[in-house]
């Protein structure tokens, strides 16, 4: 057989012939499936937070013996998968077993900051004034209002964005990465490696080996990464911002990289004086 089946126009023709809006959609399918498999539908209900109860008991005890001690933070620990909880700002979280989340008592005074380990999905209530910030042992995620999941261990953080925009900043290299729906970021602290995957692009930054990989990445993202990675200011003409670029570099200077980009794409990226 030939590679004929790969011919894109043939595939487009086949798909188009059968296309119906709102079909072949896994979210809709999952809803229907949940009616035939009821266990899938409802998240197991919250047998929640013995730790809070314990903390409360201790607090009472301490007050009881007359020492003034107000615990300044709350810690939530999920005993089972899909433990659902609402934060004081009415953001909702869904914690997987073993996940821990800590927030200050004055959680939503200025900004909304929580720290966590384990795996937690967030549906953040919108509040433009007070950014919602998730810190993990290795990175920081900053958002306004959106849905995303963070998995954090001691040495790595993984972020999965379901909707909206999220800014992800690993501790080192500290490059603020703007992530949109469908993007997955995986950061491992040990080798300072950040990998960003979106439905049609991939980008990997390694601080240890000083290497950069771009696969179908938009030029504005490439330029943002380069400017933080090499700590230079770069100019990118607006009309070239959405061109896409594929290549990888190890231990190259920023000038070399920019030359390669400009030669490949016929673009005009420049270092600002």
């Amino acid at each position, binding site marked *: *057989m030939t590679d004929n089946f*790969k011919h*894109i126009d043939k595939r487009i023709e086949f798909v*188009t*012939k059968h296309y*119906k*809006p709102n079909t072949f959609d896994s979210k809709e399918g999952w809803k229907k499936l949940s009616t035939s498999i009821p*266990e*899938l539908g409802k998240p197991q209900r919250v047998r929640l937070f013995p730790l809070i109860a314990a903390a409360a008991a201790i607090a009472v005890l301490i007050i009881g013996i007359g020492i003034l001690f107000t615990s300044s933070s709350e810690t939530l620990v999920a005993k089972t998968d899909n433990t659902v909880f609402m934060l004081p700002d009415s953001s909702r979280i869904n914690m997987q077993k073993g996940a821990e989340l800590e927030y200050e008592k004055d959680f939503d005074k200025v900004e909304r900051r929580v720290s966590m380990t384990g795996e937690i999905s967030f549906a953040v209530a919108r509040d433009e004034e007070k950014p919602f910030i998730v810190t993990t042992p290795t990175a920081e995620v900053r958002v306004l209002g959106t849905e995303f999941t963070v998995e954090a261990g001691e040495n790595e953080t993984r972020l999965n964005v379901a909707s909206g925009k999220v800014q992800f900043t690993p501790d080192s290299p500290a490059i603020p990465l703007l992530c949109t729906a469908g993007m997955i970021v995986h950061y491992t602290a040990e080798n300072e490696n950040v990998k960003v995957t979106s439905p049609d*692009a991939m980008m990997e930054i390694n601080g240890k080996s000083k290497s950069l990989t771009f696969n179908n990445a938009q030029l504005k993202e490439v330029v943002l990464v380069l400017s933080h990675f090499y700590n230079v200011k770069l100019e990118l003409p607006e009309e070239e911002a959405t061109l896409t670029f594929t290549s990888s570099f190890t231990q190259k200077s920023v000038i070399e990289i920019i030359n390669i980009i400009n030669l490949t794409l016929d673009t005009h990226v420049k270092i600002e004086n």
Partner: protein
Amino acid sequence: MQISKKQFSVYYHNYYRQLCLHALHFMNDADEAEDVVQETFVSLWDKREHLKTIKSIKAYLYTAVRNNCLTKIRDAKPTTSLEELPNQDFLSQDEQMERAEMEARIWKMIDELPERRREIFLMAKRDGMRYKDIAEQTGLTVKTVENHVLRAMQSLRAKDFKAYLFFFA
């Protein structure tokens, strides 16, 4: 081998659309294709605690969907003549997967076209309407209609292989 609820959900969301397209090649009808895929997942769920060791859950699902399609076709028409069997072009399973993945991407890209453009594109390419008739029905000029269809085709074609073109083409 066992599958947890969470793994099951991941498999479902990752493979649902491409399996639907795989099934579509057998069933030739989107609703029937979707039914087969749903049934396949229901039976995977029922068997989740008693699965023999499976090397690749994806390959397993592709095979299961194919078998379920063939059973359906056979049961619907007890005597299927050879000519009526779906033409599979003798693709290997890897090729069938690649084809379904490609088509799943295209399906999603059609989902994501701007609404107006998608409507016009479907009128032209799915329903086979002439540009002139689409123009009349939508109140647009023929030129605009043509433009929408071309642009739609461009975005469906382009995204797919762009990634490889820069350095390897």
